[in-house]
């Protein structure tokens, strides 16, 4: 049994998928169904590094923000009068929070290098979170974005010498895939709201930035990740069944995800072959 729990495929893929399916189905009739994303991620954390928070490293700050994101998301979703300013405000706050996450690394660099890295990471996190939040009304597109962003950050993380970010990205992908399945099985869309999209956007943005700062991910892979939320916003025929539309959005997301993965591959191998 211990061998199963220690296997990376179980830790990052199977366990988060199963837990996210359970949470997704259990909460499908509530506005909290997309807590499945954080449930899957937390499962991976529990099976791998655990929940120690001292010293407060980059990885642990990422876990803390991953836990905080759905709480903020629920609060935003429950506002009686949603404002247009919420989405950009959350994106800007996420960008600022990324500076806190990477503060210990930025402090060790020379001022000019720290400014460039800090501004770049904060901008990337803000834009990716903003792009993902835009999908909050669309259950299939939101799920496909999570699938693509999770796989892209996970595989790119692995190619950048980080098993930790690989498992984290795959866990988000598995959880988002679970939410696609829940919608297909129940035959109805479940809007991710801020709860789902903020969690997906913030976690995957921090995974990618972490692979850049703590491992070997090239900087040019980061803007390429923005293609994923753009791709799932492409049109798909409305008259088709839910399962076909889910498949189309998943294909959009996976094709877009392949581009930053190829960038990480290129950085690792010096060619695309």
């Amino acid at each position, binding site marked *: 049994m211990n061998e199963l729990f220690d296997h990376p495929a179980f830790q990052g893929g199977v366990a988060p998928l199963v837990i996210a399916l359970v949470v997704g189905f259990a909460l499908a009739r509530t506005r909290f169904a997309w807590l499945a994303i954080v449930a899957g991620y937390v499962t991976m954390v529990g099976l791998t590094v655990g929940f120690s928070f001292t010293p407060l*490293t980059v990885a642990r700050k990422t876990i803390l923000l991953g836990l905080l994101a759905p709480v903020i998301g629920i609060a935003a979703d429950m506002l009686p009068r949603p404002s247009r300013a919420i989405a950009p405000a959350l994106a800007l706050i996420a960008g600022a929070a990324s500076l806190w996450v990477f503060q210990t690394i930025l402090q060790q660099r020379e001022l000019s290098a720290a400014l460039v890295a800090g501004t770049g990471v904060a901008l990337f996190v803000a834009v990716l979170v903003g792009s993902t939040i835009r999908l909050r009304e669309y259950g299939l597109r939101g799920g496909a974005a999570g699938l693509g962003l999770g796989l892209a950050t996970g595989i790119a993380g692995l190619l950048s*010498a980080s098993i930790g970010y690989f498992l984290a990205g795959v866990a988000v992908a598995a959880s988002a895939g679970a939410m696609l399945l829940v919608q297909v099985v129940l035959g109805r869309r479940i809007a991710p709201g801020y709860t789902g999209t903020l969690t997906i956007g913030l976690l995957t943005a921090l995974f990618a930035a972490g692979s850049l700062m703590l491992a070997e991910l090239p900087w040019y892979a980061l803007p390429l990740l923005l293609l994923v939320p753009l791709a799932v916003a492409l049109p798909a025929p409305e008259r088709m069944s839910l399962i076909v539309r889910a498949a189309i959005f998943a294909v959009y997301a996976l094709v877009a995800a392949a581009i930053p993965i190829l960038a990480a591959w290129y950085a690792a191998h010096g060619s695309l072959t």
Partner: protein
Amino acid sequence: MSKSLAVLILAALPLTAAAAPDPFTLDPMHSSVNFSIDHLGLTTIYGRFNKFGGKFALDTAAKAGSVEVTIDTASVDTNENDKGSRARSRDEHLRSADFFNAAEFPRMTYKSTKVAFTGDHPATIEGTLTLLGVTKPVTLTVERFKCNPATATAKERCGGVAVGKLKRSDFGMSRAIPSIGDEVALTVAWEANKD
């Protein structure tokens, strides 16, 4: 009166100098910080750190001493830096956040808290290792130690070998346990010149 006091102070100076521990600086060319760890229960992987520095102080008469070593975590070397057709080498992976997290914690330090002697030689060094922002006690056993006296052309020089063990999970480095062992064996071999 003042003349007698001055004589007394001058007479006491050599005693004061003799009581102070002799400071030494590690000679990196003739020192190494090595480690070994179990892999899959099949074999032992050996590694070392290529950049480090440190000082120790020794007072054999008072049987006292102190050690402080700082190690550059990014200099980890397991003789596997050529990735070949793979995406990344083992050493690149060891530098990442999965293990030494060199970008966030570029240095680890060992500071002694007590040096116990057997005869004229240090036998055990109790101290603390700070790795990944976590400080835990680590005791080193001095397996050999010898000093060569100063000559007309060279300063006094001491050398030795110390070994110890630690659990990497105690420092929060828990990735891939048990495939890669938890217990790490340390061997520090050094030569140092008297300052």
